[in-house]
């Protein structure tokens, strides 16, 4: 019977890989997404159980303890995390996945070397690749996590010769790898490439600003998949390779979507600053003499209450202020007054792809009221009031009109085409891109100054008295 076991294990792996494939497919549609996630989890469970039955696994006690510890921590953070903190959560999990992959490679290397066996060049290359990708994913994700969590500043950290240092480190990694392939038992070289790859991860993420985090998180997500696939090459296991490749592909697709939505090239996100060169000069050129109209909550509530249609444009500022529940209450009141309310969601609203949708879903905003950029833009012309809450760059008409602007060409929500626009904002400061927003100075734009939650609450109170 034991003779059938290896075949059975391999077939179970095949089943698990298929479940991942079907699960991811179902994750693509709102109706089946939850089931898809469940299928993925079942696939994972099958793969784990099959592996534990493998002859290669000799002892169970400590493994079960490790699984128990991991499961306990994992479920704890999954239930505790606030929805606004999802980007950090995903960043942290990405990092742990990367670390796990590189530890597999280090552990396997150590096992072979300590048994005094020779490492085949194939295996050695796989180990080196797995260490490189896994470690970069690990430290890169940790830096992204620290930036998003506010442990370190979200501002880009740059210093002289940054690119040169990166290139030198890559060269050093290449040299170390070559030495290691020539002499696999070279412990110093092995430790060296580990340290270099850990450093590379840090250096890769610190120069990237907070506003580019959706791109970075997506890219690290992709890398964590590739790291798992690389670990699969080390232990020669197809289910790792397939699952890793799937995740690598999905992360890459999301990265592309994010870059497109921000009109950024992946290369420029990774290797250059944003709004540092041209942006400031644009802001200073003609900023001083402009007039804007400010409005008080009472007046604003009247405009909203007597409108036929209102489009709410939530930005990250709303999420930071935790105003999503207040916004939803305001929207409900407007609807009871017979106002048609829609939400316009920019693809990069929030700090990771689709983040705003999750936040609004948490506040029980009906799915049918959420509109993607492409669907809503044609409707602004017939909208009475566009209410912008904590968004800036994604509604800046300069992206359409001003070729000199650093955000020129970025797809935006065209709120300036609405009959009136109300912008809730703390002050006249610029958004992440560091560019002045033409929208704020238009005749039909009213500025309502104050914190998002505070102002939305006041609007609701005023609306009650109408």
């Amino acid at each position: 019977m034991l003779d059938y076991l290896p075949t059975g294990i391999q077939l179970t792996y095949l089943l698990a890989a298929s479940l991942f494939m079907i699960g991811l497919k179902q994750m693509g549609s709102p109706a089946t997404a939850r089931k898809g996630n469940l299928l993925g989890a079942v696939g994972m469970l099958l793969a784990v159980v099959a592996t534990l039955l493998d002859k290669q696994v000799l002892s169970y006690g400590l493994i079960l303890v490790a699984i128990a510890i991991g499961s306990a921590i994992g479920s704890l953070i999954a239930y505790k995390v606030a929805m606004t903190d999802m980007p950090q959560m995903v960043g942290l999990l990405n990092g742990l996945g990367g670390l796990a992959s590189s530890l597999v490679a280090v552990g396997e290397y150590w096992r072979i070397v300590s048994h005094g066996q020779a490492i085949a060049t194939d295996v050695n290359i796989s180990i080196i690749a797995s260490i490189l990708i896994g470690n970069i994913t690990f430290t890169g994700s940790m830096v992204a996590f620290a930036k998003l969590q506010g442990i370190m500043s979200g501002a880009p950290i740059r210093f002289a010769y940054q690119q040169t240092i990166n290139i030198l480190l890559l060269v050093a990694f290449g040299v170390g790898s070559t030495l290691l392939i020539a002499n696999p038992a070279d412990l110093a070289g092995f430790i060296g490439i580990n340290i270099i790859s850990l450093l590379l991860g840090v250096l890769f993420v610190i120069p990237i600003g907070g506003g580019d985090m959706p791109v970075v998180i997506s890219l690290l997500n992709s890398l964590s998949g590739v790291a798992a696939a690389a670990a699969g090459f080390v232990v020669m296991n197809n289910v790792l390779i397939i699952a890793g490749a799937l995740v690598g592909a999905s992360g890459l697709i999301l990265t592309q979507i994010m870059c497109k939505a921000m009109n950024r090239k992946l290369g420029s996100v990774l290797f250059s600053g944003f709004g540092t060169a041209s942006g400031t000069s644009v802001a200073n050129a003609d900023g001083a003499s402009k007039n804007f109209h400010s409005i008080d909550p009472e007046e604003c509530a009247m405009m909203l209450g007597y409108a036929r249609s209102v489009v709410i444009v939530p930005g990250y500022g709303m999420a930071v202020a935790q105003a999503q529940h207040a916004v939803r209450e305001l929207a409900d009141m407007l609807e009871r007054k017979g106002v048609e309310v829609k939400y316009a969601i920019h693809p990069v609203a929030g700090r990771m792809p689709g983040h705003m949708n999750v936040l609004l879903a948490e506040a029980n905003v009906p799915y049918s009221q959420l509109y993607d950029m492409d669907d809503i833009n044609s409707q602004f012309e017939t909208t009475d009031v566009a209410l912008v809450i904590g968004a800036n760059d994604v509604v800046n008409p300069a992206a359409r009109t001003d070729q000199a602007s650093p955000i020129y060409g970025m797809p935006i929500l065209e709120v300036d085409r609405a009959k009136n626009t109300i912008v809730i904002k703390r002050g006249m400061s610029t958004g992440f891109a560091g560019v002045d927003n033409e929208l704020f100075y238009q005749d039909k734009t009213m500025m309502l100054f104050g914190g998002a939650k505070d102002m939305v609450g006041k609007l609701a109170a005023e609306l009650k008295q109408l």
Partner: protein
Amino acid sequence: MSEALIGALFVFVLASFAGFEVINKVPPTLHTPLMSGSNAISGISVIGALIVAGSDLNPNFSVILGLLSVICATINVVGGFLVTDRMLQMFKKKEA
């Protein structure tokens, strides 16, 4: 290159293409859950971790690294699937 490595490369490249096809059309609403769900799947390295952790009866250095890896990967897997389910549950709730 050995035949095993070539075979593994075939699997990797073809699975990547399959991945692009499977995930290409996803509405923005599902981007965050897709990311955390696929993130959980990348915790598949738990399989490699189990093999390394179980490779010796004595808890030597390899085994310890393997066990650490099992912990990290399990957090990734369990945390990822659960938080994804939590999110998707919210999407469900208000359709009813």
